[in-house]
């Protein structure tokens, strides 16, 4: 495995003094443009282009005026940069009678996402902890059912959950929606937390029990403080999932707490003559901004957390 930072050591290998044994000496020569490096970085670069292309198209298009969108090709940079589509998407686009764009749903999305993320992670981490350290008869059966639940298409459960929420009187409320998000986030999150807690040294758990800490004591005092990476992973997954959710947000709540994605759907799906692609793209980026920022900021922790949570099974 080459270390490119060493490659600056240069190509000068023939520095052996005359008269001494000639042949390899000193650091092995490494060329910056070795075939291996060209292949490696070339491949990465090409793949990176494939991954970046859609984002590029979205950004470029959102900065064009409609006439230019219609004429030009989607990959060409804007001739005349305009922020009007962004303004329109954020504060002017109409859905039905309300012409205040995405701004209407932004705070609702925050109001939905924050408690949902907190509750779903709290429940899933406790589940994972119980499954990893406090197994009881049947606990693994429940875990298998949860994994099974990960495969159930959300749409199938739409009706039963309507009935369920109605029976417990939470239908149409924010808390109803929070519970729904917690339920559907539970399978994968529980899996991650369980794997993570299993990978922690068991002796630590035993030591704490000898020290007299109980179920909650060990959870809050020992486990949680050690689990930052996996909490970050769970947070990222949940913020992404819940922020991007459309179906639950719209089925289980009322218009006054509709999340941002409902406005996005309305902007993108309601068409007035010609599709305003630039506004659609701006709206799309605006909606995706929160999870994107979360990713960019905590991407490093994400890999570390996954490394901690997924490796051990």
């Amino acid at each position: 495995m080459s270390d490119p930072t060493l490659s600056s050591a240069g190509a000068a290998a023939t520095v052996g003094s005359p008269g001494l044994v000639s042949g390899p000496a000193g650091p092995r020569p490494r060329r910056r443009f070795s075939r291996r490096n060209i292949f490696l970085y070339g491949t990465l670069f090409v793949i990176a282009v494939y991954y970046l292309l859609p984002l590029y198209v979205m950004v470029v298009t959102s900065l064009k005026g409609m006439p230019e969108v219609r004429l030009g090709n989607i990959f060409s940079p804007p001739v005349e940069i305009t922020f009007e589509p962004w303004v329109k998407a954020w504060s002017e686009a109409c859905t039905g009678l309300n012409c205040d764009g995405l701004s209407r749903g932004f705070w609702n999305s925050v109001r939905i996402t924050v408690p949902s993320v907190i509750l779903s992670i709290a429940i899933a981490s406790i589940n994972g902890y119980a499954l990893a350290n406090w197994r009881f008869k049947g606990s693994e059966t429940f875990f298998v059912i949860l994994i099974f639940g990960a495969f159930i298409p959300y749409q199938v459960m739409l009706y039963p959950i309507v009935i369920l929420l109605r029976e417990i009187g939470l239908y149409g409320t924010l808390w109803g929606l929070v519970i729904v998000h917690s339920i559907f986030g539970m399978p994968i999150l529980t899996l991650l937390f369980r794997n993570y807690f299993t990978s922690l040294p068991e002796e630590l758990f035993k030591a704490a029990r000898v020290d007299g800490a109980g179920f909650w004591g060990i959870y809050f005092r020992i486990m949680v403080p050690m689990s930052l990476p996996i909490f970050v992973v769970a947070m990222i997954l949940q913020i992404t999932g819940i922020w991007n959710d459309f179906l639950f947000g719209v089925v289980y709540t009322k218009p006054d707490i509709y999340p941002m994605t409902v406005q996005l759907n309305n902007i993108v799906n309601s068409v007035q003559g010609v599709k305003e692609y630039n506004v659609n793209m701006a709206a799309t980026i605006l909606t995706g901004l929160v999870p994107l920022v979360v990713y960019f900021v905590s991407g490093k922790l994400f890999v570390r957390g996954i490394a901690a949570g997924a490796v051990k099974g």
Partner: protein
Amino acid sequence: MSAQARPSQLFKNLNAKIASIPMILTALVVFVGGTFWTILYSFTDSKLLPRLRFVGLDQYERLWSAPRWLTSIENLLIYGILSLIFSLVIGFLLAALLDQKIRFEDTFRTIFLYPFALSFIVTGLVWQWILNPDFGVQKVVRSLGFDSFVFDPLYNSDIVIYGILIAGLWQGTGLIMCLMLAGLRGIDEDIWKAARVDGIPMWKTYLFIVIPMMRPVFITTLVIIASGIVKLYDLVVAQTGGGPGIASEVPAKYVYDFMFRAQNLGQGFAGSTMMLLSVAIVIIPWAYLEFGGKKRV
């Protein structure tokens, strides 16, 4: 040394049991309960509202004679198998590339991962656009002088599912890469040293030594990919709406459409029962292997 009554098994680990109540309720009421509810009503002729008027296997007969359902199954199989293979292969290759102690690892990783932050709706929309022959790749290539260039996967029934696959992989492989990368980082460095001393080529080391060591990662990954495949819905709706014709229909969409658009709940439930059944066929043997035999303390 007095004899002592053995504490009831019920109260053992009481706190753990109390803490697991949300999980137990979710598992039993929502997942098991919802599943049985769905299965029960799949034997009825429920239309808009669930009604217990049993019609035997009628819904299933109709389901399996509907061309759209058969197309959906076929599509899901093609998409599922290819998506599984490509996700794993691409995810692993990307992870292996990033694991070569390269420069700008953070940048590359972020680039590969960011699509995962976007919803399927957004993914579908963007790729619908890029693959649209009138503005997208086809038009650009043609404008370069290749007039006969044809690239319209979303408008060609035969290959539309691959058009969806392109977008699906774009969105999902980043996460798989992260999982794999995490797995690779968990491999003991000494393995690499040993392989190098033994003169085993790198690809062989990966294939025969490293990958078998990453079994737990692959299991987690498999669960995530497979659950995503079964639930495939939003992407299709946003990208093709099931079209052209019914060429890109998938089971989840069939279920949803029949439940809500066609107002034939019974038919939708029959479809979802078949989906749940096939999932159970995969999960139950796995669970048996994983938890059935051994017991760890």
